């Protein structure tokens, strides 16, 4: 895994609605995805992780608006550019060819009235108009094989496939143009645990073979610890901690990360009581002053309720945290 960046999110702000009624769902997010890595993005419901994914691909449905920031994409060859500044035509060409997404709703991501083959090949028709019909079909078949689905399912309709098969078709579809970045937005939420592990294992294996980077969004921190290289924790629209997966698991610095880790059981190690996090996620319309986590934080002290902590490196290691318990040494970004 190299440390050259492939996608850099800088000061991204996303709001729902306009003017005074606007809800700030993503606040000043800075995040860098490196070539070939799996970056996990975790947080409770409403923490802004999906909005962040939709924001950086410009797929926000109205009334979502990007109010500021940059998303710098580094193509394999050529100059880096800001995705948010692309014209409609360039954006169309950018989508799926450079950044593909596997969505939350595995069951509803496929159009029920078109065959699997149609939905796989129309990507190729849009992006590779020079390809012949036979070549497109061959490529689609190849992708199905890659994700472990028999090629004769090409002529099937989505309702004839199981949930797990549909999600695998989506993964195959995501990889059909060999994108550099694959965003997985809770890709296995609708599936059972066995199928979850099977599909994620397959994806990681494919990543090793094809070398794309993954942004893996989920609320299931245990999955992230297992499958990702680096993890970013989101709370109230901000990233509150970012570190290598092992570092998050073994000694997370932010009390919120500790809370998330404390809310699921581990398979090995001594038995301990599951704690969970008291209180409820913050209302994005009326965020608490200072650190947005302070009303729920067991370790809150004097500066927490008045000053917003910045995401910064607490020591010399390549990790960062936004918490007054770990004061700023060197701001990130």
């Amino acid at each position, binding site marked *: 895994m190299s440390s050259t960046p492939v996608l850099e999110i800088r000061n991204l702000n996303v709001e729902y609605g306009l003017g005074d009624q606007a809800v700030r769902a993503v606040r000043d997010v800075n995040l860098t995805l490196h070539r070939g890595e799996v970056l996990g993005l975790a947080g409770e419901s409403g923490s802004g992780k999906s909005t962040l994914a939709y924001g950086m691909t410009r797929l926000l*449905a109205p009334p979502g608006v990007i109010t500021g920031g940059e998303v710098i994409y580094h193509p394999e060859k050529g100059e880096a550019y800001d995705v948010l500044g692309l014209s409609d035509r360039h954006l169309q060409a950018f989508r799926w060819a450079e950044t593909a997404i596997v*969505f939350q709703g595995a069951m509803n991501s496929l159009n029920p009235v078109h065959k699997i083959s149609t939905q796989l090949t129309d990507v190729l028709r849009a992006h590779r108009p020079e390809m012949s019909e036979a070549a497109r079909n061959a490529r689609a078949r190849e992708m199905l094989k890659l994700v472990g689905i028999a090629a004769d399912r090409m002529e099937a309709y989505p309702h004839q496939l199981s949930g797990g098969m549909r999600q695998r078709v989506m993964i195959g579809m995501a990889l059909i143009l060999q994108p550099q970045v694959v965003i997985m937005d809770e890709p296995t939420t609708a599936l059972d645990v066995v199928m979850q592990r099977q599909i994620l294992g397959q994806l990681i294996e494919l990543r090793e073979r094809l070398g794309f980077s993954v942004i893996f969004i989920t609320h299931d921190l245990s999955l992230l610890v297992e499958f990702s290289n680096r993890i970013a924790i989101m709370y109230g629209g901000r990233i509150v901690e970012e570190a290598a997966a092992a570092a998050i698991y073994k000694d997370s610095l932010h009390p919120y990360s500790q809370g998330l880790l404390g809310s699921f059981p581990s398979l090995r190690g001594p038995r301990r009581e599951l704690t969970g996090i008291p209180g409820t996620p913050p209302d994005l319309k009326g965020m608490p002053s200072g650190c947005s986590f302070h009303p729920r934080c067991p370790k809150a002290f004097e500066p927490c309720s008045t000053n917003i902590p910045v995401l910064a490196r607490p020591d010399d290691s390549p990790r960062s945290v936004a918490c007054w318990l770990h004061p700023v040494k060197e701001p990130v970004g």
Partner: protein
Amino acid sequence: MKYFLQRVAFYLFTAWAAITLNFFIPRMVPGDPVQALITKFQGQLSSKAIESLYVLFGLDKDKSVWQEYLDYWNQLFHGDLGLSFTFFPTPVSEIISSSLPWTLTLVGITTVISFFLGTGLGVLAGWRRGSWADGLLPVTTFLSSVPYFWLGIIAIYLLTGPDSFFPSSGGFGSGLVPAWDQYFIPSAIQHSLLPALTILISSVSGWILSMRNMMVTVSSEDYITVAHAKGLSDRRVALSYAARNALLPNVSGFALSLGFIVGGTLLVEIVFSYPGVGFQLFQALGAQDYPLMQGIFLIITISVLVANLIADVAYLLLDPRTRKEG
């Protein structure tokens, strides 16, 4: 295929039930057509003539109901619907076959235009919501709530007159003989414009509204977001993903409305005295012309059934989820 045959069998059964009802209902209505005819001829009929009239109308007192029922079916298969007595002794089938083309062309063409126009505008309004197309909606809501016969009366009141281009009644100019020539065709088109426009204006808004609403519903589906994320052109997403799926309910609505072509626009034909089936039915009702009513009801029933069958087949073709495997 098995499903299709099941549907066909179902419709054949329904047709049988409808025709049987059609046979029995006039026999249950108080009064009988021969009495009405006797009154019409003011007692100038001999008892022999009356007797033969009963036989002619299939009301022979010597026959059992069962025998009459079998005769009725036998006649149906020979295309014999009996004799009308407003236009005595013209056969009902002849009256229907002369009035049916008028209704079919006027209402048929209008329904088809209305469906395509309305659905197209609905797709546009649903896909570009928040733009100028939304301004269309209050107008269509208003128009769809206006009864079309009322619209027809207003149109006659405002647009026709001695000097107007639009004739106020009839299907063609007086003094013309129906034929495929350069005098009759333009006259027929001229006469059909106003009723067609009336039907079009009042029916197109329904299509716009339903299509627009389905487009809005479908637009929020996950597969639309996926289609956008795939980098497909906006046109392709709008047509092949959104409109293709939003079309399903409208298509079955369209097939059903085909069934109402024959009987559904009775009032427009009455308002414009248009020589179609609806107008004939109106006259038949006024004259207690049972055989004619029976014949028209039969035609209406069959067209509704055929339209339903078309709706089923269309759905089968458009939505793979309705196809049963094996």
